[in-house]
């Protein structure tokens, strides 16, 4: 055992230190022959005869050396090294080929590794928590409706936490984090900061340990406890220069002294998991006794006990929630939970898009391989004499295949390394794109598994594109090859057939990619075209801070004054204030037509927006009937509400709506207007029922000032901010948020996917056209003589060109036909990703055909032109 290990080690050492051993052996053989000659001389031989005899007895110095090397070293590795040296020399000789091949491979492999990294992060890699597979997301109301519909009251949370037997623990966080505005003072100008309130057991249950300091204590999570906060890692770095001494110090948040007890590690990014695109600065304990009377505000996450399945937990809660509800007659709903594993909740919706992306990028790799096969075949044709010679000199077929595969592996190895660099920079870029609302995007990176993936696909690609040319070249008739690879000579027809087949497949695959990308692009354009119900361009929002002392009457006066002064700024067309903006966040309240009887479960929460007069106009919302609010709608006058068409249709299906009395909560409220539907939670989903209440009558949650401008909104930022500061010195220094940016954020996942698929399709198209060009160009070169003869016999330039282009089109049309057939199947598979676009969208299909046709004609035209310029005399003489 140890002997054989020692033996192996010695062989490796011998392999590595070849030269000194060779010299040693040389000296030994020298002295051996010396002894032999001496002995022979003593026997009385002549000097020549003594030497001859000695050499004869020795039996071939070179054989002995070779045997020695084989015995002591690693002959297979020796051959590999030989191949490597040979390959590198060959590749250096053919610089253009090497550069093109490596570049194509780098693009293909790079794209694959990038997409793999994204897929790995979003779908494959577990969430960055302890035992993440046991974490479960609980949503009320079957996960449908606004935030208020799917969340829980404090009581429901605590009752479920107490009575269930499936979960080790259940935790929650406050979902209306957007509604609680924090401003940090004491560090220069007051600045807005973003905090999330979490239950005391939130971090311990997820298994998140603080990077510094400690988590919340039990007392700190109770009412009246000392105010404390945990900083997020980026905020700690940005605001406090990563100073560890900050732990234990107090900061001022909303004029309250809050002690920093710790820093959450960088690996925990609340936004990337629970609210993509959100940057959280700090976490504070959610004081349950404070939120108890606030309705549905908590999102629930549970950790299953070991051995309990999701289905078992679901079954238990299906029984448990109605029981709890029976014990609480005052509850409005039974909070029946729909459970999904947390990972599925976070990225489940993206699964299909990501898989499509993965397939698209796989197609790219295939096209890359086909292209390289083609390049290698073309190159091999030029080298066929070289290989024939090597075989004639005794190289076996296996040896030549091995040599060619070594070449492929080296090419794809270099391509892989470059591709990895490419993927590395792209993932780095993606991870810093806060504006793309994709979960976990910030943790996308090229990790160990991505490296393994790179190696895997590089080897896979090398074998795929190398094996066909290798067998093609190493086979065949030796004599034929030696004889006919002269310039201008025709080669076997099969060679060309193979290359044509490769190009046809390439065109087919590109066609599938183009049609897929085209359908997604059309969908995206349709999404951009959706009537949002408001006008995002030239409108911007800014968070407003004011102090009304909790009195609605005073609030009215302050807001009216703010709007009066802001509207007076030159360039501002209109202004209004709302507590929530569409596509941003929402909440819902009870709303019903007075006197109407609703069936069980018919009443869903209605989204509620508390706004000032002028807001609807500033947002560009369309009032279809009735009137806007006015400052005369006060706390003492008739309560009024404006609803959207969806609400009007739902509650008063066949009647006029304006003037009707509704119940908002349990207060009688007159409907004074109806607006066109607004896309409130997603650009792609139909509108839900909404109501708008005046800020003078209902309590807002925060305030966003929306201005519509004649100029670019940024140009007015300082004057608006100046006005707000003049009225309230505590106004935090926030930035204008263009409404368009909110819309862009909402459509960013689709934009992201469309952009990537389009890039891949473009890449596929370029590669396919390169392939077409290569094949046609090569066949023209090969037929130079033939074309020369035809021209000598009277064929015109035009006729020659037509011939070549016709040949190109023939190839491409077969490819397109195959591609179309495949595309129809593929389009059906991605139908659920399309928006208002049929999987058989005629424009997309026609567009693709025309585009591919044009590219093909162009790719064929260049060689065609060259063909038509052939000088018959030169061509005939050339051989």
């Amino acid at each position, binding site marked *: 055992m140890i002997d054989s290990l020692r033996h192996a080690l010695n062989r490796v050492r011998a392999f590595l230190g070849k030269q000194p051993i060779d010299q040693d052996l040389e000296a*030994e*053989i020298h002295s051996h022959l010396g002894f032999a000659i001496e002995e022979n001389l003593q026997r009385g031989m002549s000097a020549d005869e003594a030497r001859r005899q000695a050499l004869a007895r020795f*039996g071939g110095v070179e054989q002995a050396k070779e045997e020695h090397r084989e015995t002591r070293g690693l002959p297979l590795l020796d051959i590999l090294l030989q191949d490597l040296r040979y390959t590198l020399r060959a590749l250096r000789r053919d610089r253009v080929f090497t550069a093109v091949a490596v570049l194509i491979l780098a693009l293909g492999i790079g794209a694959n590794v990038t997409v793999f990294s994204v897929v790995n992060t979003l779908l494959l890699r577990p969430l960055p928590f302890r035992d993440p597979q046991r974490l479960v997301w609980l949503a009320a109301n079957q996960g449908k409706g606004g935030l208020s519909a799917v969340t829980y009251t404090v009581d429901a949370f605590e009752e479920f936490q107490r009575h269930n037997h499936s979960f080790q623990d259940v935790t929650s966080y406050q979902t209306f984090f957007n509604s609680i505005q924090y401003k940090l003072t004491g560090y220069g100008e007051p600045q807005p900061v973003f905090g999330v309130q979490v239950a005391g057991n939130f971090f311990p249950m997820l298994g998140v340990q603080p990077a510094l300091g400690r988590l919340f204590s039990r007392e700190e999570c109770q009412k009246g406890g000392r105010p404390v906060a945990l900083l997020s890692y980026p905020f700690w770095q940005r605001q406090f220069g990563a100073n560890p001494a900050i732990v234990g110090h107090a900061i001022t948040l909303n004029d309250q002294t809050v002690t920093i007890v710790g820093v959450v590690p960088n690996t925990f990014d609340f936004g990337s998991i629970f609210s993509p695109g959100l940057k959280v600065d700090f976490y504070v304990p959610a004081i349950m006794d404070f939120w108890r009377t606030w309705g549905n505000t908590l999102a629930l996450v549970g950790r299953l006990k070991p051995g309990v399945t999701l289905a078992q937990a679901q079954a238990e809660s299906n029984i448990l929630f109605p029981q709890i509800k029976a014990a609480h007659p005052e509850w409005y709903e039974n909070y029946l939970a729909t459970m999904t594993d947390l990972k599925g909740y976070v990225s489940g919706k993206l699964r299909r898009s990501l898989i499509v992306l993965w397939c698209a990028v796989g197609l790219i790799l295939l096209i890359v391989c086909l292209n390289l096969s083609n390049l290698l075949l073309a190159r091999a044709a030029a080298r066929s004499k070289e290989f024939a010679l090597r075989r004639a000199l005794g190289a076996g077929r296996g040896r030549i295949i091995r040599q060619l595969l070594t070449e492929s592996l080296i090419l794809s190895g270099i391509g892989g390394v470059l591709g990895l660099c490419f993927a590395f920079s792209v993932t780095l870029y993606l991870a810093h794109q806060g504006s793309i609302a994709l979960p976990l995007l910030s943790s996308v990176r090229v990790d160990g598994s991505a490296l393994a993936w790179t190696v895997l696909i590089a080897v896979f690609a090398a074998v795929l594109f190398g094996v066909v040319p290798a067998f093609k070249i190493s086979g065949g008739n030796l004599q034929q090859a030696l004889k006919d690879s002269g310039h201008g000579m025709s080669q076997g027809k099969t060679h060309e057939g193979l290359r044509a087949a490769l190009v046809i497949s390439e065109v087919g695959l590109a066609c599938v990619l183009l049609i897929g990308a085209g359908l997604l692009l059309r969908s995206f354009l349709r999404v951009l075209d959706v009537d949002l119900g408001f006008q995002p361009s030239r409108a911007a929002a800014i968070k407003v801070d004011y102090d009304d002392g909790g009195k609605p009457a005073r609030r009215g006066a302050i807001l009216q004054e703010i709007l009066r002064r802001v509207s007076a700024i030159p360039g501002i067309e209109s202004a209004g204030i709302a507590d929530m903006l569409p596509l941003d966040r929402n909440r819902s309240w009870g709303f019903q037509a007075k006197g109407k009887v609703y069936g069980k479960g018919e009443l869903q929460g209605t989204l509620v927006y508390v706004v000032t007069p002028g807001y609807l106009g500033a947002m560009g919302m369309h009032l279809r009937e009735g009137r806007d609010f006015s400052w005369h709608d006060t706390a003492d006058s008739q309560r009024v509400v404006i609803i959207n068409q969806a609400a009007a249709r739902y509650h008063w299906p066949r009647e006029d709506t304006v003037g009707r009395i509704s119940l908002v909560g349990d207060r009688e409220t007159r409907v004074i207007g109806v607006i066109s539907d607004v896309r409130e939670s997603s650009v792609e989903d139909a509108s839900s029922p909404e109501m708008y209440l005046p800020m003078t009558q209902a309590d807002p949650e925060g305030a966003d000032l929306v201005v519509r401008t004649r100029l670019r909104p940024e140009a007015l930022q300082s004057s608006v901010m100046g006005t707000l500061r003049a009225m309230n010195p505590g106004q935090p220094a926030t930035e204008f948020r263009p409404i368009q940016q909110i819309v862009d954020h909402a459509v960013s996942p689709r934009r992201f996917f469309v952009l990537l698929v389009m890039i891949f399709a473009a890449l596929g198209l370029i590669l396919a056209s390169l392939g077409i060009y290569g094949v046609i160009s090569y066949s023209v070169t090969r037929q130079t003589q033939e074309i020369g003869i035809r021209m000598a016999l009277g064929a015109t330039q035009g006729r020659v060109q037509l011939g070549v282009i016709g040949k190109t089109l023939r190839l491409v049309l077969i490819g397109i036909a195959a591609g179309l057939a495949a595309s129809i199947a593929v389009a059906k598979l991605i139908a659920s990703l399309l928006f208002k676009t049929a999987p058989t969208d005629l424009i997309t299909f026609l567009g693709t055909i025309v585009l591919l046709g044009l590219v093909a004609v162009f790719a064929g035209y260049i060689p065609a032109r060259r063909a038509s310029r052939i000088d018959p005399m030169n061509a005939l003489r050339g051989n």
Partner: protein
Amino acid sequence: MPESKLDLLQGTLDLMVLQTLAAMGPLHGYGIARRIERVSDDVILLNQGTIYASLVRLLQRGWLSAEWGVSDNNRKAKFYSITKRGRKQLAQDAAYWQRLSSVMGRVLALREEGGH
């Protein structure tokens, strides 16, 4: 009629080298080759060069050690000697070989008898 020379069975050369060194003490490559030829009365067909592959194999297994030195007739040469582990291996291999050859002898004798 001259007897034709014997081809060496694979592996037997290693054993001969070990035995030669065990019996004679340190020797250089030529010395070993000559010794084997002489002991076999020159009936073994030995390309002397092949001894070096055998020597390096035995060296790498740790059964021999080697050192450059000077011979009696003042010529620089590499001297091989058998190691402790080499002796152990030799004992094992020799026993095996003897058992094998005695069995071979018996089997062949059996066939001759059967022929009569």
